[in-house]
């Protein structure tokens, strides 16, 4: 019982990274129709930026949670303005290829600047150690990551359901043409939404900084699992991204515990099963398949 709870927390913590980043991927896809291959590289940039800022100006973890996503937002806005924008009208495959090239570029730039060995990051004192929940000892940091990402997802959900921006984002995810026809200026929201999606990937990176090894390649396997998450949840489904993110985290954690050699494969088996039953994913709509 004790073990199972521990694996659950571990899985939910791992799932937090996937959920946050997949959420970013989903909003970007929803409004721009772009599947951002560079999302893993942006996650990596979030972690690397945290480590570099800690080293240079002593920016602590709590401030990094705020500052780094803002920087990543600016980076995302620049990316959209300089590159992605020019391909919006074309087949989505071109943007996929563009962001693929971008991720190669970003990963190698970081590799050349900071080498291949991991950057150091000390986790804040208060988050190290374990907390005792009814006799079960759980790692504080994992509990924190889960609660924090849950909070962010809830906030995003509130914005999506309660505000005008959210309404527009959801409407254009559902039916972009119809939204335009109703006189909503979808284009106005394209750039900020892209920046916001990148910021979410960066935020996942900041959360990963004290927890995982910070290397240029940390996003490379991350993006692949992220795609499995998005396929399972349904492309463009915001709820699906979050639910599938946590689900994949759990599958990964229990897989590592009970079948270590197969843990990674299990995720893709899960994905294959989902495609077999519902090609559009658990929460996806048919036309996106």
């Amino acid at each position, binding site marked *: 019982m004790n073990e199972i709870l521990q694996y659950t927390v571990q899985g939910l913590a791992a799932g937090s990274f996937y959920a946050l980043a997949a959420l970013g991927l989903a909003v970007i896809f929803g409004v721009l129709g772009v599947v951002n291959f560079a999302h893993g590289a942006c996650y990596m940039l979030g972690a690397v930026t945290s480590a570099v800022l800690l080293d240079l100006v002593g920016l602590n973890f709590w401030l990094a949670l705020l500052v780094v996503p803002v920087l990543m937002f600016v980076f995302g806005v620049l990316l959209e303005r300089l590159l992605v924008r020019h391909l919006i009208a074309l087949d989505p495959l071109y943007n996929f290829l563009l962001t693929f090239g971008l*991720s190669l570029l970003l990963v190698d730039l970081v590799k050349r600047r900071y080498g291949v060995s991991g950057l150091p990051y000390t986790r804040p004192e208060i988050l190290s150690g374990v907390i005792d929940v009814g006799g079960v000892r759980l790692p504080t940091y994992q509990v924190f990551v889960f609660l924090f990402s849950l909070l962010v997802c809830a906030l995003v959900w509130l914005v999506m359901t309660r505000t005008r921006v959210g309404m527009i984002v959801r409407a254009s995810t559902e039916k972009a043409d119809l939204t335009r026809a109703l006189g909503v200026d979808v284009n106005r929201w394209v750039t900020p939404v892209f920046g916001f999606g990148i910021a979410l990937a960066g935020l996942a990176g900041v959360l990963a900084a004290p927890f995982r090894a910070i290397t240029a390649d940390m996003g490379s396997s991350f993006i692949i699992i992220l795609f*499995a998450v998005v396929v399972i949840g349904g492309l463009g489904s915001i709820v699906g991204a979050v639910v599938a993110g946590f689900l994949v985290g759990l599958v990964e954690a229990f897989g590592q515990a009970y079948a270590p050699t197969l843990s990674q494969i299990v995720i893709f088996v899960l994905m294959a099963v989902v495609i077999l039953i519902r090609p559009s994913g658990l929460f996806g709509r048919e036309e996106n398949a």
Partner: protein
Amino acid sequence: MTTRTDTTVATAEAGSSGFLGRSARRWWMLAGGLVVALALPWFVYPPVAMDIAAWALFAVALDLLLGYAGLLSFGHAAFWGASAYVAGLTALHWGLPFPLAVLLGAVFAMLLALPIGLLSVRSSGIYFAMVTLAFAQMIFFIANQWRDLTHGENGVQGVPTSFFGVGPVETDSFWFYYAALPIIILGMWFAWRVVHSPFGRVLVATRDNPDRARALGYNVERYRVTVFVLSAGLAGLAGGVFAISHGFVSLQEVAWQTSGKVVLITVLGGIGTLWGAIVGAVVIVLLEDQLASSGFEGIGIITGSVFIIVVLLFRRGVWGTLQMLLARRTGRTREGSSRVDEDGDAAIGAADGEQGSR
């Protein structure tokens, strides 16, 4: 969904039929290509020449799928790599002559592609790319974990080049090139046959308007699975030759970066032009070889930038652009695209294709 990607092909192809007869020109190009292929190891270090040939066939295999069926597989390393492992292992443990080992590898790649294809073709467009990528990653993890067989990160080393006891081929990479070239050329000829067959015509129809093809009674999914399996087989041929020529199979062969590289080669050369895939392979392999031998470590910086530039400014790729320029010079631009209509080729997105190239 993918119509805009691919119609440049049809436009350019029809446009280029202007001067000289279509078939006469084709024979001249084939003859020229053959001469270049035969002369290559005289001018390029033979193992690099072999790499160029293998990557060219790999790109042709991918383009069969991307250019003619409109399906972007982002997991083709699975087939290239799986075949590399099978060819390498059978050559190592059973001492098979390499053409047989490569053939076994290709057959294995096709068997692997069948279930993956059946599942993947349920989706299309960007979804297809992600699904194939995920399946390829599954193969990667299997290759990584099955250490008894694949030796994980160390790779399969010391793969011999066995060729019916013919000494020079087995020891000299120059002669190996000439022994392996027929396999590559056979693969390319097969791809060309597929494209120019009734099957290929239907494929283009399913790419441009799957609903209409379905309404005409074609089983679109079956065509897609078939071309997926054929493409995997060709990728397998290429991967097997590559592995044997290196005497080594590594995890790199099944990694997603390899899938990305072959997409880059295809896009750089020009989607939907089999010649373009070959040109792309020449450019990228030589570029990487130059960078590696000059000690430059950030190859991703260069290839990533090439990718971005090609996709932003140069979407027809090298060969597609050449064809367009040639078509313009011979004064058959717009008329060319309307001609395609009669052939039942891509007419729907022809205008988009034109637009997209600027």
